[in-house]
């Protein structure tokens, strides 16, 4: 399955604080209530830390959470 694009901004000010390397836009699975969604997030290629922007958490993610909860 192709990851949904548009979930993350084209650039990010964040780097991995632990590995001290830039994050890379990467397809990752996010999940809720047993459902998984492939999305593109900025991610540390070394340790796997990701970046979820505030707009994503309070926007699309919240919307999908609510939809799944009402299913």
């Amino acid at each position, binding site marked *: 399955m192709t990851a949904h694009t548009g979930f993350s901004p084209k650039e990010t000010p964040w780097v991995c604080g632990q590995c001290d390397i830039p994050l890379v836009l990467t397809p*990752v699975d996010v999940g809720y209530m047993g459902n998984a969604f492939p999305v593109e997030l900025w991610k540390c290629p070394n340790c796997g*830390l990701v970046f979820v922007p*505030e707009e994503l958490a309070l926007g699309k993610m919240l919307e999908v959470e609510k939809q799944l909860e009402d299913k």
Partner: protein
Amino acid sequence: MDQKELRELEAQCLQECAPTCTATCPVHVDVKTMLAETARGDFSAALKTYRKAVPFPGIISRLCDQPCQGGCLRMDSGGAIAIRDLERACVRLGEITHEKVRPLPKRKGHVAIIGGGVSGLSAAYELTRKGYAVTIFETGGALGGSLWQIDRDFLPAEVITEDLKIMDTLGIDVRLNTPISDVLELRREHEAVYLAVGAQTEEYFDLQRDEYGFIKTDPVTFETSVAGIFAGGGLRWGKEMHSSITSISEGRRAAISIDRHLQHVSLTAARGNEGPYQSCLFTNTDKIEPQPITPESDGWLYSRADAVQEAQRCLQCECMECVKACEYLKHYERYPRRYVREIYNNLAIVKGTRYANTFINSCSLCGLCGEICPEDLDMGAVNLAARQAMVKQKRMPASAFDFALRDMAFSNSDHFSFARNRPGTTSSDFVLFPGCQLCASSPQHVESAYDYLNTKLIDANVGLMFGCCGAPAKWAGEIELFNQTLARWRANLQTMGNPTVVLPCSSCYQTFKTALPEVQIISLWELYDRYGLPETTAPAVKRTIAIHDPCSARRERSVQDSVRHLAEQLGCTIEELPHSREKTVCCSYGGHMWLANPEVAGKTVRRRVDESPADYLTYCAMCRDFFANQGKRSLHILDLIYGEPGDDSAARPNPGWSQRNENRMRLKRKVLQTIWGEAMDGSQPYEAIRLIVADEVRARLEGRLILTEDIQRVLEYAERTKRRLRSPKTGHFLAYYKPTTVTYWVEYEPQADGFYIFNAYSHRMDVPGSQPPTSGGAS
């Protein structure tokens, strides 16, 4: 909820009952709709509505004896609506849209109708539309019967001719100048006969007659003494009474019987409300401005403007009592009869989206609708049962009440909860149970109240017990958690020697009263009222306040009185709000409304605070704090009892969720230390982390329901594991961690004396890295 319960609940809501005008009308003209259409000047729509019930609108709008007016609720405020005059205006001013009458496929059965007056014609009209072959036998030379004997000025010939044209389109076999003398013979030649020869008949066709001499008919089916022969209209009541609308009604109802007779089904089953009946609709007429009947401009006919004006006098009768009183019921733009159906459907969905979840979870469960409803339908009880069912079905949205349940869990954890007898005693006669939110909002008053009880109840041992009663679990539909919580209080009280529980909080009071009926309880306010104000109370300051009764004290008259009595002693002039005592409204905390639906909660609390400009006085910490959130000056009764001179407690803000936890924790630590000489142990490493938060960020976190503790846990994890993002540009860190069900993100900067917090947000979806990469890393 099963089908039967659903129907019972639906039946309790009267909103869909026909208003008196329609119920009284023998053919049930939808007067309300017709007048609404007239009021907006749409005469054609109004005429169409009229014609649905009345096949001969020109004739009937002149002849009708308008029984509808008798029950018109406008009667006492200017006079009943001039319904017939408006009907005539609609006939004159509206355009008839001649839809082609579509008869059903032909059915087997030939019906003879004797008499071509309005009753016979109505029966013929109905029966041909059902697909039966109909022959009308009319003595005279034209259809219309006695209509032709009416004064031509009153009922012009062209009106009759115009209205009866509809009969030509139905394919009826009309035999004019054909008197019938042998009905039994006619019956042998036809499957059914309808006898409608009018009031002037002196012919009885060898049928049985009643005690008044009229042809005997069944009042419901209109069947005569001979099966298959039906009779109706004027012949049943004679010349003394003339009601063309009743003639039409009886023709139509006889047609229903004839149809059933021809189909060999019961003539009598389910025939309620066919003729005039008693309306069950409730309409509040308390605040209706009188308005006189509109006179006809030219003395006889309503002009367009007259008709609009007269129709606008119609009250558009409806109940909607609960909806008018409740922002929540209003918000969803329907009424309980519809709502219970939606709830039922929502619970029945096996696969698919449950659109009513938010509706069900948004109710404050305050019970006001049940108080107001003429049939006592309480949507709170319906919604609470629905929530319990959702939890049972494992279909309750995980986020719905999570925050409130975590708040409750905190209150019942060692951070706050404890129970002690008075030092040096092994049992209690009384125990003060201040509940969770008073301790969170005004911890110092709880200490004062405990001190008061020990001073006043001098011969009694007074213990202290902290925790949350369990109401939040009940509101969330979590019966199991609620019962576990109750079991804990039951066990504690038993250990303490079954003391009387002293309760300041009305929600705790309801919990104990209804779920632990074996426990003796008393409201703290009744005790203050009985034993008098403490000696320390500052001299009374004269002020005017409006009392807000918490919704959970709705039925507690004695508690309400105690608070009013105390308020008077404290120098207050009491203003009663429009909704008070048993009709009080919820502040929007009840039932977790504020959490499930901030929009509806906002409307609810704003409506309440706008009811009076006076400072509000209440006896629930949450009501007070929710009003304070709206900038409403509000006092808790304890603010008055224990306020220092010069305090402006009414301006005190809501402490906020984080501070509430902090206040509870500190209160427990303090009373354990000062009263029992005990130290509180078991604090978590993260609790020592100091946060520096600007007011604007604090307000944002409050709105997002992110607590200090949540942030401390993220920081503890990030700083310990160094798993965090960094911005080379600003030097800020961004870390995320999921302590239980929610992932929190915190943007921060370590400083010498703590952590400066720039922002925080959260989500419930799982993302990689929100917990330690290998299990066992975090604690």
